[in-house]
């Protein structure tokens, strides 16, 4: 056996000389001739007979070579070399294929890597598929919440859950040690970790007594805090740390991937220590807000759970005041749904766009391969006639397709990595987990395989055809083969481009509407200043008021600042105070029926707020500085609210009670409407209440707005200096209104930019595909054109012939695409702002652009067809 292996190896290394084989075969023929002579033939006849009997020498030689061990590998190397030579000869083809593949694979992989993190990531909880978010929703709060007054009843009487738990949100807290640090502290119910399926990596969970009022002060800390603040010190357990000046014992460390179910950042988790008994008394008798999460019993779905919660929901309804009861609904949905809500549609749209681009890319590659194959039909026929076996030809074609696919996939990796970085860089802050997105090798492989399949399939189709003798015989090659397939590929490409292009244009128009809309206020030359006051230094409303009074006075002294206003929130979008329209009562009128009128926005402002933002007072007057010290309550309402509350009446001087137990306010003026919803949202009526110099008015957030004629970068340092003179420990966040608006538009900008990129890429590829097919047809028909011209066809006739063919493809593709685009735009509806999903201008415009570009792609080859010289065309073979 060893001997045999040795022989093989020897032959593998040493090549047989061609001469030896020839000599051997030569000897055979001579022997045969000699035998024939001996049989009585003349020497000539004998030699002739011997050669006839012998048959094809070349074929025998080939076959002898094929016996060599390692012959197969040699042919692979040969095929690769041949393919590379072919690519060098025709670099445009290879570059186009590789670029197309790279774009298709890169875009799909990058987008899917992002979308995968958003839609399909593993939640860091045990059996996360059984976790749901439970609670009430209403017009003012569309995310589920519960209240202490009924949550504990639910907890005791619910049936569909294994357990239900709640968290009380995350608040800023200070780690008051040697280096005071601002942290985020989450407060949760004692069984929170158990229900969510989270196990501390060090230490233990909370004990039941630690979640009782006045129980021992304990905390779990995040892995991040453990790492950055305590350097992963194992002695962290049972260490007493100071939080907001109080000693708290660390009982455990949370896992690295820990996150709160509502995705707030949290460094420290403490038990909430809720006093269940007082929940019917605190917070106007409805109890503290709680965000509840539950673990479904095995086999129970969220819908079943919602149905099973009917009885306990009734209990909650009894607590809600009857006037607003109709506005509340029970909602149970999976935790994943709650987390991804509005990102879901964007994610699917992007994924769809990326897949569309991949499809166009595949069609393009297939079309390119078919074109090349048709052009090489003759070459294949010649090689076949020279003795190449069919298997050999197929192998050769496969080698070429594989080489290009690998090159394309490699380039695709690079494109994907670049695109991913671009996505992360331009993505708005609101898209969750984007920073954690990594290239997904599975998707890369999938996309690469898909394009490989396109290439291989289209490369194989012609090779599988037995090369016909007619190809060799005919003076011109047969152009009909696979033309139909190629045409339908182009039609598909144009159709998909149409869908992409119209979607992108819709988003672009919507984005421009968004940017160009009238905000009802001044954005340029406005600075917003936010300060976070620590809880231990500014515990009471009075202390806060005192600070902001000083800040207001100090900022008025800053040169170039012409107005200093205060508010608790700023338009547009973001957090803002609000209530139901039906809760607003007008003096001398019956109450509005409960549950009607939707939501109303409210803000606490100072008189300069309107001046700084240049919000016009259209009726009555602004608040006066003097009214800030008055014991009366004053209100300015928006034009929209005034027209709703006082249609045809003068609102000025009317008295209004906003809220069931609010004081009565006197309306002094009407302000112009301001964009107070999100940029793409429906505006709500709004009223402004004067923030007076009483502690009671300072319970909420605060933000300052400055109007200045100087550049913001000049004013900002002065602002910081002024605040530092009041309290140097207060962090100051200065932002221009322009920046704020730009941040708000980040999300639509991101969507528009990405979809636009895909649409552009898709269109480019489709146009290249169309150009390629038309150009190829023209080359193929050069002779025909020559004949036609010789028979008297004018150049215009020829142009019409070629362009007509292209136009047919464009029209069919465009029509199919238009139909599909109209359907797809329905999906985009909720992403659009003041553009209908069937916006005629968009669709007409896109169709026109697509038609023109496509026409241009056919005109270039058509021009070269027009310039065909009949004599030359007829003479060439």
């Amino acid at each position, binding site marked *: 056996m060893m001997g045999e292996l040795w022989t093989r190896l020897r032959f593998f290394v040493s090549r047989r000389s061609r001469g030896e084989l020839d000599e051997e075969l030569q000897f*055979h023929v001579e022997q045969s001739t000699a035998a024939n002579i001996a049989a009585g033939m003349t020497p000539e006849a004998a030699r002739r007979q011997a050669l006839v009997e012998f048959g094809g020498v070349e074929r025998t030689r080939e076959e002898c070579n094929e*016996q060599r061990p390692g012959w197969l590998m040699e042919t692979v190397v040969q095929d690769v070399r041949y393919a590379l030579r072919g690519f060098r000869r025709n670099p445009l083809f290879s570059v186009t294929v590789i670029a197309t593949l790279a774009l298709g694979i890169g875009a799909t992989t990058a987008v899917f890597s992002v979308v995968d993190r958003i839609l399909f990531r593993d939640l860091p909880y045990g059996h996360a598929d059984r976790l749901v978010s439970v609670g009430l929703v209403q017009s003012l709060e569309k995310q589920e919440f519960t209240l202490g007054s009924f949550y504990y009843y639910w907890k005791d009487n619910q049936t569909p859950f294994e357990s239900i738990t709640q968290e009380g949100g995350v608040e800023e807290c200070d780690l008051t040690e040697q280096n005071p640090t601002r942290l985020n502290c989450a407060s949760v119910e004692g069984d929170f970790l158990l229900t969510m399926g989270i196990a501390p990596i060090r230490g233990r969970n909370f004990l039941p007594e630690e979640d009782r009022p006045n129980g021992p002060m304990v905390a779990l800390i995040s892995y991040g805090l453990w790492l950055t603040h305590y350097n992963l010190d194992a002695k962290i357990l049972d260490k007493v740390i100071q939080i907001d000046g109080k000693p708290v014992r660390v009982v455990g460390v949370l896992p690295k991937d820990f996150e709160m179910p509502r995705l707030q950042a949290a460094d420290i988790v403490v038990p909430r220590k809720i006093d269940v008994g007082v929940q019917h008394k605190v917070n106007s008798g409805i109890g503290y807000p709680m965000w509840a999460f539950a673990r479904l019993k095995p086999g129970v779905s969220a819908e079943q759970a919602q149905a099973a919660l009917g009885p306990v929901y009734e209990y909650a309804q009894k607590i809600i005041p009857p006037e607003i009861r109709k506005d509340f609904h029970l909602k149970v949905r999976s935790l994943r749904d709650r987390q991804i809500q509005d990102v879901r549609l964007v994610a699917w749209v992007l994924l769809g766009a990326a897949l569309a681009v991949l499809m166009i890319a595949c069609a393009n590659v297939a079309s390119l391969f078919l074109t090349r194959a048709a052009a090489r039909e003759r070459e294949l026929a010649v090689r076949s006639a020279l003795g190449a076996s069919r298997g050999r030809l197929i192998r050769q074609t496969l080698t070429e397709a594989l080489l290009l696919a690998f090159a394309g996939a490699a380039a695709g990796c690079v494109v994907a990595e670049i695109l991913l970085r671009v996505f992360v860089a331009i993505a708005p802050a609101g898209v969750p987990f984007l920073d954690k997105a990594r290239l997904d090798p599975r998707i890369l492989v999938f996309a690469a395989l898909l394009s490989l399949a396109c290439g291989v399939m289209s490369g194989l189709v012609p090779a599988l055809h037995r090369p016909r003798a007619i190809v060799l015989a005919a003076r011109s090659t047969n152009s009909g083969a696979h033309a139909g397939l190629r045409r339908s590929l182009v039609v598909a490409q144009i159709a998909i481009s149409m869908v992409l292009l119209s979607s992108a244009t819709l988003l672009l128009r919507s984005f421009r509407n968004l940017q160009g809309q009238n905000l009802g206020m001044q954005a340029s030359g406005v600075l917003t200043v936010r300060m976070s006051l620590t809880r231990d230094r500014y515990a009471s409303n009075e202390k806060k008021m005192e600070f902001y009074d000083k800040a207001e006075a100090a900022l008025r002294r800053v040169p170039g600042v012409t107005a200093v206003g205060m508010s608790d929130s700023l338009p547009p979008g973001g957090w803002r105070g609000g209530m139901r329209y039906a809760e607003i009562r007008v003096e001398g009128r019956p109450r509005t029926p409960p549950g009607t009128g939707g939501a109303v926005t409210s803000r606490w402002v100072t008189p300069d707020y309107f001046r700084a933002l240049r919000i016009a007072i259209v009726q009555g007057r602004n608040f006066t500085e003097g009214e800030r010290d008055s014991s009366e309550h004053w209100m300015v309402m928006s034009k929209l609210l005034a027209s709703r509350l006082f249609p045809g009446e003068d609102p000025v001087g009317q008295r209004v009670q906003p809220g069931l137990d609010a004081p009565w306010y006197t309306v002094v003026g009407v302000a112009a409407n301001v964009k107070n919803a999100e940029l793409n949202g429906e505006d709500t009526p709004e009223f402004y209440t004067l923030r007076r110099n009483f502690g009671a008015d300072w319970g909420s957030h605060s933000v300052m707005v400055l109007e200045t004629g100087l550049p913001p970068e000049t004013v900002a340092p002065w602002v910081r200096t002024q605040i530092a003179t009041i309290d140097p420990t207060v962090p100051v966040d200065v932002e221009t209104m322009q920046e704020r608006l730009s941040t708000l538009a980040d999300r639509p900008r991101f969507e528009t930019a990405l979809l636009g990129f895909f649409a552009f890429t898709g269109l480019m590829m489709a146009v290249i595909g169309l150009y390629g097919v038309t150009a190829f047809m023209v080359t193929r028909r050069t002779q025909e054109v020559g004949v036609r011209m010789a028979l008297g066809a004018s150049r215009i006739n020829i142009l019409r012939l070629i362009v007509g063919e292209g136009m047919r493809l464009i029209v069919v593709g465009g029509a199919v695409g238009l139909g599909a685009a109209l359907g797809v735009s329905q999906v985009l509806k909720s992403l659009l702002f003041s553009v209908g999903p069937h916006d005629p201008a968009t669709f007409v415009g896109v169709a026109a652009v697509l038609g023109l570009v496509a026409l241009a792609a056919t005109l270039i080859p058509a021009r070269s067809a027009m310039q065909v010289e009949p004599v030359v065309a007829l003479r060439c073979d």
Partner: protein
Amino acid sequence: MPPSTDLLQGTLDLLILKTLALEPMHGWGIAQRIQQVSKDVLQVGQGSLYPALHRLEYKGWIESDWGASENNRRAKFYSLTRAGERQLAAELQHWDRMSAAIALVLGGAPEGAA
């Protein structure tokens, strides 16, 4: 061309090995010998002979050497190696089993049908 009998797959190898078991021989001689011994029933064309010879040589069952032919021409002589002898023995045994089996089937078929 005289009507050729298609050789069973692998049979040509066996015939070549068997022929070479007698004495080293060149390609032409092997073809002639097979034709003679089979009384002109088996005609080995060069198109299958030479690839087979090369295949057997690559497998190490036969080896080749240049020598002088009967009419003093340079010719390539093939001879059986040790491995070739073992292979021949194995294939002969296999052949015997196969032909006996085939004979059984062919001989037994009429009885079975009756």
